[in-house]
């Protein structure tokens, strides 16, 4: 029983790390711009492809290519914002939803044209390695790496938001864009910056997913759905809330998967049911503020 409990704990933590990666970029972009980026899953997918081609073509490990992939993702996200979203930032929310949804579809179809629908994956040695804590308790090395990187990303992001000039400006825009503007902060530049940063986190996540999950042009949508659920649960505009939401969902799914017969088939449904219960009790999510302002 102790072994089972320990394995549930380990798997919940590691899955929580993966879920945090999927959601944190989406949360950041929404927190600042108030735009739900429906193309976020496809940005993750492009990161995964970039890491894959670096691995296969240049023999560069995904953990090494991650920084470059993130930088390219950041530049791409910044440009995407400037060229598209910036023009409709004051429009009705539905226009922004439709635009990001459309961008996602375009990105997906371009990927199909460029790389076909074939499944791919990077295959570094750590993706196949694991440690036995006891006879029954196993830690997959690839997932542990993802967990550590998720922790690093979140800490760096929080540190940036708290202590850097730009980070503080970003938080100011997030809290009250009118006041931030009156204080001389270039609101639109902050939007573009946070969208770029969100895309950088998305593509970095893709690089990590490249050795955990099969890469296809269609991998983005399930990631988006999961990330969306997590940020709703955690509170749409809170990075810490996103982390809590990710671990809540991961723990619920894993526990149900282990303890309920045919549980992994039920896990997602039950986890989403719990999400609904949490939202009934706390409509803004665990740490969110969106909705309170309105």
């Amino acid at each position, binding site marked *: 029983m102790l072994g089972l409990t320990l*394995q549930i704990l380990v798997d919940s933590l590691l899955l929580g790390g*993966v879920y945090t990666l999927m959601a944190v970029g989406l949360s950041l972009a929404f927190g600042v711009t108030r735009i739900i980026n429906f193309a976020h899953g496809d940005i993750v997918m492009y990161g995964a492809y970039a890491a894959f081609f670096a691995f296969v073509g240049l023999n560069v490990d995904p953990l090494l290519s991650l920084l470059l992939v993130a930088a390219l993702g950041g530049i791409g996200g910044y440009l995407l914002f400037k060229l598209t979203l910036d023009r409709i930032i004051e429009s009705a929310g539905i226009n922004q939803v439709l635009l990001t949804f459309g961008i996602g579809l375009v990105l997906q179809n371009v990927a199909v044209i460029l790389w076909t*629908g074939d*499944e791919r994956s990077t295959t570094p040695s750590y993706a196949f*390695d694991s440690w036995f804590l006891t006879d029954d308790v196993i830690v*997959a090395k690839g997932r542990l790496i993802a967990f550590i990187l998720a922790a690093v990303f979140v800490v760096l992001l929080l540190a940036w938001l708290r202590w850097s000039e730009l980070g503080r400006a970003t938080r100011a825009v997030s809290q009250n864009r009118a006041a931030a503007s009156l204080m001389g902060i270039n609101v639109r530049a902050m939007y573009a910056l946070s969208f770029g940063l969100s895309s950088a986190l998305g593509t970095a996540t893709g690089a990590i997913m490249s050795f955990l999950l099969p890469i*296809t042009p269609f991998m983005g949508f399930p990631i988006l759905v999961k990330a969306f659920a997590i940020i709703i649960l955690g509170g749409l505009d809170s990075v810490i809330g996103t982390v809590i939401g990710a671990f809540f969902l991961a723990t619920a799914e894993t526990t149900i998967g282990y303890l309920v017969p045919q*549980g*992994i088939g039920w896990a997602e449904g039950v986890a989403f049911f719990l999400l609904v219960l949490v939202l009934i009790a706390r409509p803004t999510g665990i740490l969110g503020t969106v909705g309170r302002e309105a």
Partner: protein
Amino acid sequence: MKLFRSCLIAASLLVPAVLANSTAQAEDVIKIGAPVEISGKFVSYGAAAKRGIEMAVDIYGGKVANKKIEVLYRDLQSDPQATVNSFTQLLVEEKVNFLIGPIATPMTMAGLPAWRRTKALWVVPGATTPLLEEEAGKEPMLFHTFPYAYYYHRALARSLKEKLGPGKTVAIIYSDDAYGREHLPYAQKYFTEEGFKIVAEELVRAGATDLNPVLAKIRRVKPDILLGLVQTTDGILLTKQVYVQRLNIPYLVGTAYPQLKQWQDATAEAQEGWVGVTTYINGMKAKADPKYPKLFMDSDAWVAEFTKRYNRVPEFIDVGAYVSTCMLLIAIENAGGVDDKEKVAAELKKLDVQTMIGRGHFEPSLGGTLNQAFADVVVHQRVKGADAILYPKDFETADKFEQASYAK
């Protein structure tokens, strides 16, 4: 006025001539509808089907009974609604009497109601679902040229029993989508019939990110064989996580995915020992058909020809679409090049050829499809990065299943 009258007379003389010419041209063309998945989720299937059809028409010479073969490709976009539209357009507007495709089960099922409007001669070189059999198996115009799901499990159970002996236990993982749920009863039936004891049946969500809870449950029952009834994307995740978890199950068995290069590339060392089923795998040796040696060549010659054209090694759908198209073209030729589905169907039924994937001959399937060809499947195993063929006897290149290797 005179000029107008002259023009009118000239036009009245010309129009029938032009019409007669265009009718003659239309009569000189045999149109074949090819609704295939050229984009979307099943693009790899559709692309392979298109290659096979193209190559068959080309090697046939582009003409049948002196009539130009015109293949009308329609992209189903891997989408049921687009499939309905494409079928309707081909059957009602283009009025094709012959159809070949699609490959994926959901697309075939989506096209079925539209097909019923004209019931053209329909060659289906894919779709493993016995639902197709239930819905349309008794239709005389349906020609299914790919094994149904139950043939997979019959061959797997037989070959494993034959090579491993009696008394072995099996754990089954199946996905909660149509694929997994449809395969499960056939796996249960044939493995039980061959004397295997099923000690676990575990459901997984299609597209899940974590299979560890299921694998932990299976570890506890210590089966001899793990059978994974999932599609390729989930097959990659399953293969990797089974390896990472060091399950120590000696025999790992999949369905169609272990034959796919994309699965092999994505799973690297974790693929070692996995067993799969297919209709064709590289290394299968078949002699040329004595009557049609240019179409159904010696398997090595055909692979060389395909590789030269497409700069890649053929996979099972490439070959399946190729032989299915060739058989349709021969039947049209034998029927005298008529655009008449009844006559061509009669010729297709008579055909008996030796192809790269075995005997090409239509007969009733186990489940009652009137016209079924290529029901035999090959069981193969990934050993040291290559394929060993273990079933049927005619194609065998190894005489025993290797145990899966788990690193250190």
